[in-house]
């Protein structure tokens, strides 16, 4: 049974779990469901424990009942047996009387004999208190009988009514029996009841009935229990009739009455009988016995036992004393109340307690889960709020920064204007300072705006073609002034394997480089800052080769932090080397690794962990001494992340830091049809041809620096050789097969020994093989080179100030070599100028329903020299752009009544598509369409709200880009340059 319960419990719990998981989603439902389940569980187990209690109690009671029944039955049987023994003996005595009293004449028995016999055989009848014999006397025989006996027959009923005590019992006082038909006076009696001699038994009510019944039935007959005359105890009288003759078993009662001679009666003392019996048995104390005569069912007569009415458990056994008319019963009861059913109570209580405990555990669990869930939801809510607050903060920052920019632009503009007015020197100075501060403020705001944009996830990278080398040259020139001022050597080296053109966001790339270099510049007082750009594959492949950049062999000779350690944590490198290059080479992606190495103060070890945390600087003193907000690196990190790269650094205090980052770009050289625009970006290209075929000799004992010089000169198209010493130069020139056009000597070597330098110049001057090569000095800073120029007055070499930049180098060389400068645009050219070049003579259609906007846009484009045609609706635009047409581009307003820009573009694209198809299938001649077989006019959306959704939609409907209204030269240039 326990096992079954256990199964049930475990099944239940499983079910609960199952249900729980099912409902975990809907919390409210689960909660209500749980409550119900818990109540059901508790109620169910209460019922179960009650049932167990009842069941066990019932079992105990049943067992008790059984015990009682068996005890009761045992007693009844014994009582019956003893009674029967006595009865049999009395019956035997009746036969004796019939034989010796009536069978012999004269009688062989008299009172004394009878008394003595009965006395001595009393042990045979342990429960009879006495035996008496009454003879049948007819009225006619009375007188003779009385005479013969010597006493009169006395009546018995008076005695019955007034029972007397033995002591004052006087037979003489009894009345003589009244006249009747027949009498039955007692003639013999045992001594114990000798007082009944001469009493007429027929006159007693009970006795008479008994006698009459006994003689007609011929069996032993019992009276109802009554108080015995003398002892006053409850007893019954057993009566046997004595017949004259032996009667057969089938005689009628009448014949029996006729044959009756007398009656033998035995007095049974039931009370003492039962008492004796019970004393013989063990465990007498445990039960109470009552014996009843139940001949009359409605009034049972108690024969033995206390008359305690108790409705407790009792058992009834029937007694058969041989008289069919009389019925007797034995009622047994336990003396004590049934003991408390402790086992049942403890069992059921125990089960209930366990169930409650389990219920409590469930309850607690559910509550706990609910609480945890609530907490979780609360946390989520809080998290959401915190995130929202963060976004709001970022947005606020972005908005505020943006809003600040507008008035700042006003301030700066006004300062500009103010500078154009007539001012004295002091005023000029003030205005200049104000303007510089304003510009610093704007750049700071821009940084904050960037940070905010990154944090709110709104920063998007552009994808445009750019020349990495040009950008680095730009950045270099930005820092060149400062580096010369400080005497720090600045150099850039870009691996040959890096493609000329890349597609990506040049502005952001430049921002990262500028930031890293700016930091390096800030913290470096001597030595060098060295930027290297490689392909990641290159670095992975040649890690061993790179060991040349050991601490001694550096750009300026100062020890540096090993840059390889800066990318130790990069995932790109931790991946298996074999899979990485494969995945990269399979696509057009260019994985660049850029290192910025400096010999500055380094970053203290304890600050390493928060280098990329926004607004965290090494210490408060840093911002005092070096300025800055401390968000540059964090922005750089985000930008690098946007370029799907990684950034890391290594820094040794007092030696220097190296920052390395990777970035992924697309190869820009793969689409030659878009090569047009390269011309604008790649400003160094025109210069390169002029130096084609020339040979340059670099004299430098530092291989790293020589590599940089070689890189820059090679970019110009010249062939480069490197020697490490001045003494090797002359042998090389004279021994070499090719003509050396120029010699570039590192200033360090030049200054090392002025004697050698002087000698060298002399030798060079006297060099007689053809044109003597031009001598250049690669100088670090303007100041130092000047002093040296004075000492070596004999043959003053031309000084090229580092940092080396291709454009600057080209210009210097051109000047010296006399190669004509064809006036290619300078490095920091305004986009407006290029725009002019770009748009000059182009035919452009502007579509806008608003004629004010139309006018403004047209004015802007005309300014750049474009030939502008206006249309004020989408429909007009469609008709104008129906091929063949002369338009080079179309600027389309997005929001127009009737037909908006998107729809118009869709229509135009559809039209172009069908015409292209016809041309391809030869249904239309190409000649009719200006020999263009693939019509696709660049359409640029003009929108006031430059949001991502608009951008995407514009691309979806076939537009090629978008420009914001009002036009901004930079953006206009960027967009237009992609198509024209």
């Amino acid at each position: 049974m326990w096992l079954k319960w256990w199964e049930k419990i475990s099944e239940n719990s499983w079910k609960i779990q199952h249900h729980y998981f099912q409902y975990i989603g809907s919390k409210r439902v689960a909660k209500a469901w749980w409550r119900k389940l818990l109540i059901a569980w508790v109620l169910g187990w209460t019922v179960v424990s009650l049932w167990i209690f009842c069941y066990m109690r019932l079992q105990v009671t049943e067992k008790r009942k059984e015990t009682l029944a068996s005890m009761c039955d045992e007693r009844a049987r014994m009582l019956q047996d003893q009674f029967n023994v006595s009865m049999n003996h009395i019956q035997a005595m009746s036969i004796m009387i019939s034989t010796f009293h009536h069978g012999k004449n004269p009688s062989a028995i008299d009172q004394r004999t009878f008394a003595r016999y009965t006395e001595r055989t009393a042990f045979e009848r342990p429960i009879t208190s006495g035996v008496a014999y009454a003879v049948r006397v007819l009225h006619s025989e009375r007188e003779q009988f009385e005479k013969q006996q010597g006493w009169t027959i006395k009546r018995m009923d008076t005695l019955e009514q007034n029972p007397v005590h033995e002591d004052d019992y006087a037979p003489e006082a009894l009345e003589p029996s009244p006249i009747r038909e027949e009498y039955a006076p007692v003639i013999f009696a045992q001594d114990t009841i000798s007082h009944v001699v001469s009493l007429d038994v027929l006159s007693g009510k009970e006795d008479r009935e008994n006698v009459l019944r006994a003689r007609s039935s011929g069996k032993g007959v019992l009276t109802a229990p009554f108080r015995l005359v003398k002892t006053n105890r409850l007893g019954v009288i057993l009566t046997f009739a004595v017949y004259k003759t032996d009667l057969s078993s089938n005689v009628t009662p009448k014949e029996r009455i006729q044959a009756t001679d007398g009656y033998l009666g035995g007095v049974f003392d039931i009370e003492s009988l039962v008492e004796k019996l019970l004393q013989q048995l063990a465990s007498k104390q445990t039960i109470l016995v009552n014996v009843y005569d139940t001949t009359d069912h409605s009034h049972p007569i108690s024969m033995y036992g206390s008359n305690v009415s108790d409705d407790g458990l009792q058992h009834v056994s029937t007694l058969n004393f041989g008289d069919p008319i009389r019925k007797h019963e034995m009622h047994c009861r336990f003396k004590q109340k049934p003991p408390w059913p402790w086992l049942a109570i403890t069992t059921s209580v125990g089960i209930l307690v366990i169930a409650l405990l389990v219920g409590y555990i469930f309850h607690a669990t559910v509550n706990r889960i609910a609480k945890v869930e609530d907490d979780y939801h609360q946390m989520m809510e809080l998290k959401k709020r915190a995130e929202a607050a963060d976004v709001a903060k970022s947005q606020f920052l972005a908005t505020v920064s943006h809003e600040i920019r507008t008035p700042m632009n006003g301030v700066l503009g006004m300062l500009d204007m103010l500078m154009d007015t007539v001012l004295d020197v002091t005023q000029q100075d003030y205005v200049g300072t104000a303007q510089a501060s304003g510009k610093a403020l704007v750049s700071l705001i821009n940084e904050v705006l960037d940070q905010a944009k990154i944090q709110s996830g709104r920063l998007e990278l552009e994808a445009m073609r750019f020349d990495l080398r040009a950008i680095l040259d730009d950045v270099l020139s930005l820092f060149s002034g400062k580096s010369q001022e400080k005497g720090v050597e600045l150099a850039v080296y870009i691996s040959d394997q890096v493609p000329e053109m890349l597609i990506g966001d040049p502005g952001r790339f430049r921002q990262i480089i500028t930031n890293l270099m700016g930091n390096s510049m800030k913290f470096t007082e001597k030595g060098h800052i060295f930027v290297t750009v490689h392909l990641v594959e290159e670095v992975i492949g040649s890690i061993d080769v790179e060991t040349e950049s050991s601490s001694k062999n550096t750009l300026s000779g100062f020890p540096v932090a090993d840059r390889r350690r800066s990318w130790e944590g990069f995932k790109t490198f931790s991946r298996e080397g074999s899979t990485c290059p494969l995945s990269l080479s399979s696509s057009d992606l260019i994985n660049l690794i850029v290192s910025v190495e400096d010999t500055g103060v380094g970053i203290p070890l304890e600050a390493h962990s928060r280098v990329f945390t926004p607004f965290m600087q090494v210490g408060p003193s840093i911002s005092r001494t070096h300025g800055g907000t401390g968000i540059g690196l964090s922005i750089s990190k985000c930008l690098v992340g946007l370029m799907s790269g990684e950034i890391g650094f290594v820094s040794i205090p007092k030696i220097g830091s190296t920052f390395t980052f990777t970035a992924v770009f697309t190869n820009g050289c793969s689409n030659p049809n878009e090569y047009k625009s390269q011309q604008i970006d790649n400003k160094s290209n025109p210069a390169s041809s002029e130096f084609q075929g020339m040979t340059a000799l670099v004299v430098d004992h530092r291989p790293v620096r020589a590599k940089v010089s070689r890189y820059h000169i090679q970019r110009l198209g010249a062939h480069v050789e490197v020697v490490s010493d001045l003494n090797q130069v002359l042998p090389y020139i004279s021994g070499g097969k090719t003509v050396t056009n120029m010699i570039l000597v590192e200033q360090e070597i030049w200054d090392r020994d002025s004697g050698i330098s002087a000698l060298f110049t002399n030798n060079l001057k006297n060099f007689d093989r053809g044109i003597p090569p031009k001598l250049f000095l690669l100088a670090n800073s303007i100041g130092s080179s000047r002093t040296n120029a004075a000492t070596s007055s004999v043959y003053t070499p031309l000084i090229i100030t580092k940092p080396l930049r291709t454009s600057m180098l080209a210009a210097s060389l051109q000047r010296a070599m006399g190669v004509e400068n064809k006036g290619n645009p300078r490095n920091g050219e305004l986009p407006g100028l290029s725009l002019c070049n770009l748009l000059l003579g182009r035919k452009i259609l502007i579509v806008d329903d608003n004629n004010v906007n139309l006018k403004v846009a047209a004015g802007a484009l005309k300014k750049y020299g474009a030939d502008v045609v206006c249309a004020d609706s989408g429909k007009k635009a469609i008709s104008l752009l129906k091929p063949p047409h002369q338009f080079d581009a179309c600027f389309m307003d997005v929001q127009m009544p009737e037909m908006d820009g998107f729809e118009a573009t869709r229509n135009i694209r559809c039209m172009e598509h069908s015409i292209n198809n016809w041309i391809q299938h030869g249904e239309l001649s190409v000649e009719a369409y200006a020999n263009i077989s693939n019509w696709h006019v660049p359409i640029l959306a003009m929108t006031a709200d430059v949001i991502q959704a608009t951008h995407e939609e514009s691309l979806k409907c076939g537009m090629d880009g978008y420009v914001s209204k009002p036009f901004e030269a930079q953006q206009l240039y960027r967009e237009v340059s992609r198509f024209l």
Partner: protein
Amino acid sequence: MDKNHLQRQLEMKRSLLDQGYLDEQFIQLEELEDGDNPNFVEETVTTFYANSARLLQNIEQALGSRPIDFTALDNCMHQFKSSSTSIGATRVKKECTLFMEYCEAANAEGCIRTFRQVKQEHASLKTKLENYFKLARQGGTSAGGHAGRS
């Protein structure tokens, strides 16, 4: 005399910018002026006023009709705002933005109230610009071009 004019014109422009009537877009417009296109700004502004008179009338009608068609109102106002932005009329633009917000919320009362503001700003700007151009014409040269470039 010329210099004096120029000075006054500059001052006036600055006050217009300072008071927020105009923004840098106007300066950019002036930058577009050159020899080929001497009266570009004035022409543009004239077009703007011709254009806006029609639009304002449309809006007035739309506001007068019941029930108010807020979509149409929004379209009209968008046009008006767009052209205001183009000439750099910041104040007008701001009111327009407010108006469009009310439009979105279908708040007729707010629309009417803001429209009054729009008209007021529009009118006051008109006066100020007229004065400005008058000054510029008196100067005889397209002073705006110089100012813009500086």
